[in-house]
């Protein structure tokens, strides 16, 4: 409970020196909360301009849609804070989802088994990436480009390019069920986000993640086992991507081997909008959550307003720039 309140306090802003002139204060406020303010502005705009936007139904809808990208983005945040990147997440979504879909009908009611195997697949791919990065000394971009190719190949070969359809009831519940008024994917996402926020901001391991990203050599010199930290983040990245894949599969009641293609770019965009630097050392889970929701709300809003698909990409690009301009204040 006290943990919760502390987290809420953390969400409201970083503790920092709070002295200084009024102008400085305003600037610091915008810097700290820029993306939040921007998010609020967009929500207000859509509440006015987009019919039905501000209905409970639609808001639940947006969060549910965002929860898959959101889950993947959680792990990506860890990885990017270490100055890494994971391009394989999209294909992990495909492969893990595929595994899940293949095993789920066979296992009947006991959907824990396919769930664990699916997550295991994510762990395995994360392990491969980590091994290349840590033991092979290969740049994350390339290592995960390789695992991306390998995982996608595996998904295609396993099913010979076919779609796997028809999950069992409990498995489907993962994607379409509700607990009270809240969809299951949303609950999974929120729980995972809280856990990640806790780990990243409160634990020793979290602190080391920032250290590795800030200055890997210094981190090594003070005795942090940087290899272990890197291993962990890629494993986390693999698991969250796999979890995203399971939820996606459950949501679509089937898995295509190409599912998740191109997700990596969306996920990275959301994480960066949330204030995580590609160069490592900086970033928060709460920022990522906002980044994910911001992208989700914009897409939803454009659909509600009936913006043509032709223009949607362009509008998204512009929103992106605006969001980041606000984030920039922070780095000063």
């Amino acid at each position: 409970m006290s943990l919760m309140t502390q987290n809420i306090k953390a969400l409201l802003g970083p503790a920092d020196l709070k002295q200084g002139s009024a102008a400085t204060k305003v600037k610091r406020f915008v810097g700290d909360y820029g993306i939040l303010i921007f998010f609020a502005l967009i929500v207000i705009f859509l509440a006015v301009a987009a019919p039905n936007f501000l209905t409970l139904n639609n808001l639940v809808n947006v969060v549910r849609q965002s929860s898959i990208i959101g889950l993947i983005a959680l792990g990506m945040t860890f990885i990017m804070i270490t100055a890494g990147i994971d391009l394989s997440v999209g294909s992990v979504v495909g492969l893990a989802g595929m595994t899940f879909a293949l095993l789920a009908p066979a296992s009947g009611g006991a959907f824990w088994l396919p769930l664990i195997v699916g997550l295991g697949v994510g762990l395995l791919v994360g392990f491969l990436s980590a091994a290349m990065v840590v033991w092979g000394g290969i740049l994350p971009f390339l290592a995960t480009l390789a695992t991306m190719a390998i995982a996608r190949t595996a998904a295609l070969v396993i099913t010979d390019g076919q779609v796997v359809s028809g999950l069992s009831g409990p498995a489907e519940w993962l994607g379409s069920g509700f607990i009270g008024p809240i969809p299951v994917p949303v609950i999974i996402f929120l729980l995972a986000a809280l856990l990640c926020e806790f780990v990243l901001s409160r634990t020793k391991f979290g602190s080391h993640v920032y250290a590795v990203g800030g200055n890997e050599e210094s981190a090594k010199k003070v005795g942090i086992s940087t290899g272990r930290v890197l291993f962990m983040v890629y494993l986390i990245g693999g698991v969250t991507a796999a979890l995203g894949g399971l939820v996606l599969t459950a949501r679509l009641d089937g898995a295509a081997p190409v599912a998740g293609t191109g997700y990596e770019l969306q996920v990275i965009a959301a994480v960066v909008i949330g204030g995580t630097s590609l160069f490592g050392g900086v970033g928060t889970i709460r920022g990522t959550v906002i980044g994910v929701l911001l992208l989700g709300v914009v897409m939803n809003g454009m659909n509600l307003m009936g913006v043509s698909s032709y223009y949607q990409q362009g509008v998204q690009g512009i929103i992106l720039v605006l969001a980041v301009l606000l984030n920039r204040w922070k780095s000063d």
Partner: protein
Amino acid sequence: MTDAPPATPPLVALKDIHKTFGAVSALRGVSIDVQPGETFALLGDNAAGKSTLMKVLTGVYQPDRGSIELDGKRTEFPTPSASRDQGVEMVYQDFALADNLDVRTNVFLGREPQKNILGPFLRIIDRKKMEAETKRVLERLDIPINPRLKVKRLSGGQRQAVAIGRALAFDARLIIMDEPTANLSVAKVDKLIEVTQRLKDLGIAVIIITHRLDEAFAVADRFAVMRQGQVVGRFHVGDVTEAQVAHLISHGTLDDYVDYGDGIPAERRKIGSTSSMDVVDAMATRGNTTDGSDS
């Protein structure tokens, strides 16, 4: 130039260490030993190999040849964490700080104090304690810094203080300081000398690398002089003068040392002579052969 064999095994002994980087031989058979509780100064010209030697001792580099002994037992430091676990702390010449993190986090990096929540299995970082300890260590060094400031915002001396504070904040058996006073102001240097002396009283061994001979003579029991990757002299602090050591640092031998009796090293005598003035003369006459304009 020879030490009597000590009764107890030395706290740490480096034996015949070699280390080559590509074409550069940084260390060519270096042996030193440090007794428990002793303050040991490592002196030498720039690029003599001092920092490299110490990084071998803290596990940053692996030696190409040679061995490390701890309490008389042969050991290996494959990683800095192995060395730190044995109670060896080091203040690195480049400070080894993470610029993106705040002062307290840097001080406790890799050794974060934790507290239990929900029983002993769920432990979180104790930031309050980190903050309090950081404040204490830095204030006692007489360099108070807000523990929540990002390190990248600090002045040169403040950064150095954080690096020193980190080494002092833990229970060490050996503290290595690589030019710890380089960026410190007069009063801070004196304070650090005091602290070092006090460490000796507590039985904590110190290796200090410095180019300031007065500092070395103020704190050290013994010292070694390195030159071009080798040790060219080992002394107890009373056995030589600052002038002799300065000569040794620059020339690698005392054979051609001339004692003027006033303690001024031969090097300083040359000040005002024309020996090495031509660089500046060249600057004056070069004119515009070098294109200074931007592209």
